[in-house]
Every structure is written in structure tokens, then in C-alpha cells.
């Protein structure tokens, strides 16, 4: 499975090592990876905790579509998307995107595409708990 949602903390490096061990060694040459981790600050405020809501069914389906689109656009050996859902603490990984290709340009571009598409279109919503205990929904993602 190239797409997975994780209600519990995941280790991106273990996930990558496991996933890659099933790919044919010697074929891919280039692997680009992005890991997004929860920061302890946002928009100038301390953030103590976060909850990630998603749309069960649509979220997985949409991530699969993004992977399929990347594979149409670039010559890729494989792609991987992993995303946390539920309660998250600062320092924990939120998202992992990865692309394997024979060539580094395809790997770099596809990995970034997976991440930008996910940010702009995949149904996830963040609610932050600030230092003073107040909660707020994140209104929009930063450009990137």
C-alpha cells in the first residue's frame, strides 16, 4: 500500500526502510523524501497539541489519486504517502511523502508535487491547542 493513515505516531525512517526493502534494489537510483513534523509554534503562538480531523474514505481515495497523478506525470518506480490523524504532539511526524525514480529530477519533482497536492486538496483539518489552553482551527496552510 502506497498510502496509509496513522492514528498512532509513526517513525518515517522505519517506514521508508521497510517500504524500500520491497522495491527492486538497483532499479531506482533516486529517492526524494519529505517529512513534515509538528512544530511547537505557528503564526507567532506557542502550540501545545494538535488534532487532525479527516474524512474517512475520501481522504484515502484522494491520496491514492494524487499518487496516480504523480505516476502519470513522472517516470517513477514507486511513491509513498503516510499521514497522521487524531491527537498529535509537537515533534511528532505529521506527513511523509516519498518518490523513487531512476532519475533525480523526477524524484525531486514528484515528491514535492505529492506534498503540494496533499496540502492543497487532501481533506485534513488541523485544530491547535495553544499554550494557554485555547483551541483554534488552522484557517489556511502557508504557501510552500
Amino acid at each position, binding site marked *: 500500500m502506497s498510502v496509509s493513515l496513522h492514528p498512532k505516531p509513526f517513525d518515517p525512517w522505519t517506514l521508508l526502510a521497510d517500504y524500500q526493502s520491497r522495491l527492486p534494489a538497483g532499479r531506482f537510483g533516486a529517492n526524494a523524501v519529505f517529512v513534515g513534523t509538528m512544530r511547537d509554534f505557528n503564526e507567532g503562538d506557542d502550540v501545545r497539541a494538535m488534532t487532525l480531523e479527516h474524512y474517512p474514505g475520501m481522504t484515502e481515495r*484522494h491520496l491514492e489519486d494524487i499518487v496516480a497523478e504523480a505516476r502519470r506525470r513522472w517516470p517513477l518506480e514507486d511513491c509513498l504517502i503516510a499521514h497522521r490523524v487524531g491527537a498529535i504532539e509537537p515533534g511528532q511526524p505529521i506527513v511523509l511523502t516519498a518518490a523513487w525514480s531512476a532519475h533525480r529530477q523526477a524524484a525531486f519533482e514528484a515528491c514535492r508535487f505529492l506534498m503540494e497536492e496533499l*496540502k492543497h486538496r487532501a*481533506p*485534513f*483539518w488541523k*485544530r491547535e491547542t495553544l499554550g494557554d489552553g485555547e483551541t483554534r482551527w488552522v484557517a489556511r*496552510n502557508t504557501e510552500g
Partner: protein
Amino acid sequence: MSITVRYFASLREQLGRGEDRLEAGDADTAAGVWARAVPDRTMPERILIAINQEYADGDHPVRDGDEVAFFPPVTGG
């Protein structure tokens, strides 16, 4: 059969519910579903709409059995 209406995130909290069920109407659209399900509120401008878990516009037709979801801009990743 009927239409399932779903709300997520801040919208779900503001409405105080995550789901409605509507009888299917004639020649309905996603925006029409909103008007019937949330009659006391204008549909927000920046809202996102999905019909059967695919993004759609407000004027997209809705049929009996469809699942219509409304939610604010996404903030994952």
C-alpha cells in the same frame, strides 16, 4: 433512499452536528442541498464541496443516495 449530508472540522463544530439526512428532491444541486439542510445560514463563500467523496461545484446535480459533504479549506500536511 435519501441524501446524506456531512460536515467537517470548524463547520461541524459551528453547526453542532456532523451529519444530516434529507429526502431526495427533484433537480437538486449541492447548493440546493445546503439551502435545505442549513436554511438559517448562507453557504460560506470559501466552502469546499464533495459529492460521493469527489470534489464538486455548488451547481453539481445531486441524486438520491448521494453523500454530499461540506467543509472548510483543508489544512493537512
